[in-house]
C-alpha cells in the first residue's frame, strides 16, 4: 500500500525526523489560508500515488497566497498517470543548500534491508544509479543488530563533510531504519534529504510503501489507505479478495495463481491478442469470488471476450463453474466466454457448465486461441 507524501511526512515527524512544516488542503481557498499563515513563498504539491509529479505540472512554487490558490485550482482535479489529484500539500519554500538521497528497501539478493545514500539527490536519482552507480553508497544491514551508529555515520560522511551535519544525517538514518520495522514498510525514501542555508538537515519529501502483509497487525497504518486515490476496479477487486490490474487489451482474463495468470496473458499475446487485465482469483475458491471477478471484468467496455483459465489444485473447478453459472443468472453476459478448466473436480465442473449451456475446454492453448479469435470477431 502506498502512502501519500503528507502521510509519510507525519510518520517521519512522529519518529523524530526533522520535516519542514506543511498542511494538506482540498480546495484553493484552504490553500490561500494556509499560504497566508506561512506568510512567505510556498510550494503547492499534488498528492497522488505516482512518480514524476513535478514533470507533470503537479508541483508549483507560489510567491503570494493568491498565486498559491491559483496553482491549487489547476492542480486539484488534474490527472497524473491516470490518477485524479484530490489533495495538495502546502509547504513553505525551503532555502536549499544541498540535496541528497536516502532510501531503505529489502534487497532480495542480500535478503536484508539495504540502506542507500547518494550526495546526488533530487529527481534524477535513477539516472545517477544507471550512469554513475559509484555515486550511490549501499549498506546491507544485519537485522539482528539494526543499523549501528558507526555504520550510519560512515554513510552520512559520504554525504556531508561537516561533522554536525553528518551526525544529524546518521541520526535520521537510524530513525528511518527503526521506522521500517515499526510500521512494516517495504520501502522508505527521503528524496531529497536537504541541508538548508542555516545548516539544518531535513527531509523535504518522503515516500513510504507498506508491505500489504503487514496491514493486519498495523491497523493505524491500514487506516491511512486512501481508496479515492486508487482505480475503482482495483478497490472492488481488493474487497472481493482478488488481485486485479487493468490493462489496455480486449481479452478479459480470469485465472487462478499469479504465475499462471501471467503465462495466460503472455499466451494471449502469443496468439495475436491483447489481455484486458491481470486477474488472479487466488488459491482458495468460492463461487462468490468468481461472480465478483466477472462483474469487474465485464465493467470494462473494451473487453470483447472473456477467458477463464483454471488449473484446479486448492481451487476447485466445480466452485468456479458454479460461480460462472451464478453470475450469468445475476446479470447478462454480452461478450463471449471461453472456459478452460482442468484439475480438482474437473468432471463435476464440466457437468455443471454443460447443463447451463456452456462448453468447457481442457487445453490451455486451444482456449486462448478461441478467446483471441472471439475478441477479434
Amino acid at each position, binding site marked *: 500500500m502506498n502512502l501519500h507524501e503528507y502521510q509519510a511526512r507525519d510518520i517521519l515527524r512522529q519518529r523524530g525526523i526533522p520535516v519542514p512544516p506543511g498542511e494538506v488542503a482540498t480546495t484553493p481557498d484552504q490553500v490561500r489560508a494556509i499560504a497566508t499563515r506561512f506568510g512567505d513563498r510556498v510550494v503547492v504539491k499534488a498528492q497522488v500515488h505516482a*512518480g514524476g509529479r513535478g514533470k507533470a505540472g503537479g508541483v508549483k512554487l507560489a510567491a503570494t497566497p493568491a498565486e498559491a490558490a491559483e496553482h491549487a485550482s489547476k492542480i486539484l482535479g488534474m490527472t497524473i498517470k491516470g490518477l485524479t489529484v484530490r489533495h495538495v500539500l502546502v509547504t513553505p519554500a525551503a532555502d536549499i543548500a544541498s540535496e541528497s538521497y536516502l*532510501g*531503505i*528497501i*529489502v*534487497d*532480495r*539478493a542480500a*535478503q*536484508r*534491508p*539495504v540502506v*542507500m545514500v547518494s550526495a546526488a539527490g533530487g529527481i534524477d*536519482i*535513477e539516472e545517477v*544509479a*544507471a550512469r554513475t552507480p559509484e555515486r*550511490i553508497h549501499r549498506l546491507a544491514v544485519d*537485522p*539482528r543488530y539494526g543499523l549501528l551508529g558507526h555504520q550510519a555515520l560512515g554513510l552520512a560522511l559520504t554525504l556531508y563533510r561537516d561533522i554536525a551535519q553528518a551526525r544529524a544525517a546518521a541520526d535520521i538514518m537510524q530513525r528511518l531504519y527503526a521506522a*521500517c520495522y515499526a510500521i*512494516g514498510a*517495504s*520501502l522508505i*525514501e527521503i*528524496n531529497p534529504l536537504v541541508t538548508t542555508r542555516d545548516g539544518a538537515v531535513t527531509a523535504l519529501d518522503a*515516500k513510504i*510503501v507498506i*508491505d500489504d*502483509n*503487514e496491514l*493486519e*497487525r498495523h491497523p493505524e497504518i491500514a487506516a491511512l489507505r486512501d481508496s479515492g486515490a486508487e482505480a475503482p476496479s482495483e478497490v472492488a477487486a481488493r474487497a472481493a479478495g482478488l488481485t486485479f*490490474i487493468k*490493462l489496455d487489451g480486449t481479452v478479459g482474463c480470469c485465472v487462478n*495463481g*499469479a*504465475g*499462471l495468470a*501471467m*503465462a495466460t*496473458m*503472455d*499466451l*494471449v*499475446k*502469443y496468439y495475436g491478442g491483447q*489481455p484486458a487485465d*491481470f486477474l488472479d482469483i487466488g*488459491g482458495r475458491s468460492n463461487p462468490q469470488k468468481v461472480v465478483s471477478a466477472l462483474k469487474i471484468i465485464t465493467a470494462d467496455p473494451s473487453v470483447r471476450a472473456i477467458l477463464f483459465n483454471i*488449473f*484446479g*489444485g*486448492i*481451487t476447485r473447478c466445480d466452485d468456479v463453474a458454479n460461480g460462472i453459472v451464478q453470475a450469468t443468472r445475476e446479470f447478462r453476459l454480452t461478450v463471449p466466454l471461453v472456459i478452460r478448466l*482442468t*484439475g*480438482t473436480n474437473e468432471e463435476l465442473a464440466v457437468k455443471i457448465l454443460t447443463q447451463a449451456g456452456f462448453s468447457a475446454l481442457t487445453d*490451455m*492453448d486451444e482456449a486462448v486461441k478461441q478467446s483471441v479469435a472471439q475478441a477479434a470477431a
Partner: protein
Amino acid sequence: MSIFIDQQTRLVVQGITGRDGSFHARQMIAYGTTVVAGVTPGKGGQRFDDTVPVFDTVAEAVRETQANTAVIYVPAAVAASAIFEAADAGIPLIVCITEGIPVLDMTRVLPFVHERGARLIGPNCPGLISPGRSKVGIIPGNICRPGRVGVVSRSGTLTYEIIHQLSTQGWGQSTCIGIGGDPLIGTNFIQCLSGFQADAETDAIVMIGEIGGTDEQQAAEFVQQTVTKPVVGFIAGQTAPPGRRMGHAGAIISGSSGTAAEKMAAFARAGIAVMKRPADVVPLLRERM
C-alpha cells in the same frame, strides 16, 4: 533417487488440525508420505484421524517420533514463529506453504534458519513432490508421474500446468519443487539446480521463473558454469506492464534486470532452451535430449 525428500522422510505437519492442514495432511497420507506427527498448541495428546499423534510443540514431536521434515500450514500471522520453532527443534528440512508472511519477518527468519543448518523451502510455495515416493505440500499428486525430469519453479498453478504437459506426454518427474513467489525465500533456483545436477536419477531440468528480482539471471550463470544436464526454461510475465514500481529504490536495486526479456536473454546466453509458452516444454526437452 530424488532431491530433498524420499521414503526416509518422516513428516510433522504444523497446523494439522486447521482447515488447510487437515485437508492436505490427508492428501499427503493418501499419497504415501510418512506423516509421523502433527502440531497444534493446546491439542497435544489427541490423535488426528485416530492415527497421527498431535503434540503441543515441534520439539516434543521430534523427541517422540524422530520427525525429520516439517510442513507448515498455519495462518500468516503465526507462520514466521512456526518456522523459528521448527528450526529450533532441529528439523533439517522445513517447508512453509503459508502465504502472506511480511517480508521484514523473513529478514529475521532466514539467518536463524541458516545458523541452525536447516533448509527452508518457501514460504508461499506449493512444496515438493517426488512422484511415487513422497509428497510434502500441496502439489496435486494425480498430475505427476514418476520419471527423470527435475522441475523447479517460483509459481504454483503454472508449475501444475507444466507438470501436466510433461506427464500427459510421457515425461515423468524425479522431483518437482515450488520454491515460492515471495521476495525472500529459503531455497533458491541454484540450490535446486545443484541438487538435480548431483541426482543420478535426474536427466533433464525444467526451470520456471517469473518477472522481478535477479534470481533467474544468477541461476543462468550457474547453469552455464556447472550444470551439464539439459535445462529448459520459462519466464512468466512477458506482457506484464512495467508499472507498479517501488519508488526509486526498487529501480536502483534492480535496474531493468527484473524484466522477462532480460531474464530470457540471460537463459539463452547460458545455453538454456527458452520456452515461449508452456506447451513448448516437451518439444524442447525432446530436442535437447
